[in-house]
C-alpha cells in the first residue's frame, strides 16, 4: 500500500511537471469488439474473470503482476512493446459474467490513450459463447491541438488493435488451440 501510494505520487508529480493535460476533458471515444468462441460460457468466464491471468491469453502481454485484493486490486501489464499498463479492478459480476477495470497510468509506448475504463462480458451464443470487450477512452493528448499520433483516431486505433488481439488470444486459449 505504501509502495503503491508512493508510485502514485511519483506519477502525479511527473504529470504535473511535464505539463500533460489531465485525463478527460475532450470527447470520450468508444471501442466495441466481439468474438464468438466455441466453448461454454462458464468456461470462458472462468478465464476472463481471473484478473491476473491475462498474460496467459493476450498475445501482446508478456507479463501480468497482480497486487492488492478486493476493491484495491491492481495489475501491471508488461507489453511486448516494452510499455506498461496499470489497471485497477472495479467489479467482477459472476451473474452478469462481466469484469470492469480502468487504466491508472499513462504510457504512450503501451497505448496512445490517457485513460480508459473497460468492460468484458461473456454471453451464451450459438456454438458456445460470445465475448464482448468494450472501452471508454480518452486520447493521449487531451489538449485542443493534439499531434496525429496522440489524437482521437490514434487512441481508437491503438485500443482496437490491442482489444482485437486480446480477443483472438482468448479464443485460442478457450478453444484449447
Amino acid at each position, binding site marked *: 500500500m505504501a509502495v503503491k501510494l508512493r508510485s502514485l505520487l511519483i506519477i502525479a508529480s511527473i504529470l504535473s511537471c511535464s505539463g500533460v*493535460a489531465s485525463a*478527460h*476533458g*475532450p*470527447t*470520450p471515444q468508444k471501442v466495441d469488439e466481439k468474438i464468438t468462441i466455441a466453448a461454454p460460457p462458464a468456461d470462458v468466464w472462468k478465464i476472463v474473470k481471473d484478473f491476473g491471468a491475462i498474460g496467459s491469453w493476450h498475445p501482446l502481454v508478456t507479463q501480468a503482476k497482480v497486487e492488492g485484493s478486493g476493491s484495491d486490486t491492481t495489475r501491471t501489464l508488461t507489453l511486448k512493446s516494452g510499455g506498461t499498463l496499470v489497471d485497477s479492478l472495479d467489479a467482477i459480476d459472476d451473474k452478469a459474467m462481466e469484469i470492469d477495470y480502468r487504466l491508472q497510468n499513462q504510457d504512450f509506448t503501451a497505448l496512445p490513450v490517457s485513460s480508459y475504463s473497460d468492460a468484458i462480458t461473456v454471453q451464451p451464443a450459438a456454438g458456445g459463447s460470445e465475448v464482448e470487450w*468494450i472501452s*471508454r477512452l480518452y486520447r493521449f493528448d487531451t489538449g*485542443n491541438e493534439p499531434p496525429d499520433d496522440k489524437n482521437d483516431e490514434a487512441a481508437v486505433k491503438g485500443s482496437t488493435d490491442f482489444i482485437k488481439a486480446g480477443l483472438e488470444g482468448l479464443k485460442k486459449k478457450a478453444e484449447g488451440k
Partner: protein
Amino acid sequence: MRARIHVAALMSAIATALRGAVAMASTQNVYVLSQDDGILSVIDTSTDEIAAKIAITGKPAAFTIDTASRRVFATLPDTGEIAVVDLDRRAVLSVLKVGGQPFGIASDKTGRLFVGDWSANRISIVDEKTGTIEATLSVGRAPAHLVATRDGSRVYVADRESNSVSVIDTKSLKILTEIPVGRAPFALALSTDEKQLAVANVQAATLSIVDTATLQVTSSAATRAMPYGVAITHDDSEILVSNQHGGTVSIFDVKTHASHAEIKVGRYPEGVAVLKNGRKAYVANWFSGSVSVLDLENKIEIKKIKCPEGPRMVLTGGADH
C-alpha cells in the same frame, strides 16, 4: 350548409388548440445532449419520445437551461465555444467564443454564465448575450460540472482532479471555500430545498453529501464503481446515482444514505434527471446511445429511447418547456 361546415371546422380547430394548450401546460420536456453527434434532443415526457432534435455544430459536452430567457447554453470544449439555443425556435441562435476548454456551465439567472475551463483550472464569468468574459476565478484542477442555486447567488463546482468542491458567491465573485470530497468528483445535484448538495466521486466510488449551511460533508456512502451522474428527486426523498461500470442506477434514501434499489440501464450511463412530479427519471446511456426511462415508484426501467450518439447530460426543463 357551408356555414355549418365552417363552424364544425372551427370547433375542431379550437378543440385541437385546447388539447395542445393542456398538453403544453402539463408536459415537462427533458433535454438530452449527445456529444458525438452534436444534437440536443427534446423528449416529450408524455409520450417518452424524441419530439425534436436540435443540431449543434461540434461536440457539445455540457449545458444549462436559463428558464427566464428560455435558452440553452451548451459548451464546446474542443473549439472553446458556447452554443446558444433558442428553446422556442429550437435552433442555435449564436455561438459565443470564450476560448480554452469550456466544460461545466451554470447560469446565475442575471444574464451571466459561470463556465469551467477544464485545462486552465478556472471559472469564467461570461455575459450570456455578448460572450464577453467579465471576470475569472481560480478553482481546483479540472473543473467538471457546475450547479447554481435557483436564485443564482451561489455556484458549486466539482474540481475533479483536486478532489474538492469549490463554492462561489456570485455577487462578490469570491470563492467561499473548497470542500474536500472523495477522489474525482464529477457530477453534482442540489436538493429542492437547496440544503443538501450531492456529489458523485468517480474514482472513490462514493456519494458525498454536503450540508450547504455549514459547507461540510455530512456523509459519504459507498456507491458502485464509477458513479458518473447524480440527481435528487423533487420531493428530496431519494438520490439517484448512475454507475458507469455495471450499467445501473442506484437509488439512495436521503435520510439514511443507504441504497435501497438498483435498476439496470444501458451501458456507461452518465447524466440523470428526475421529473418534477417525481415519478420518472431519465438516464443518458453514453455507450448505448440511448436514454433509459425509469419508473421511480416501481423502481424499474420502462423504456429505452434510442437517441443520437454520445448522450452524456440530461436536464429537465420547467413545466412550461
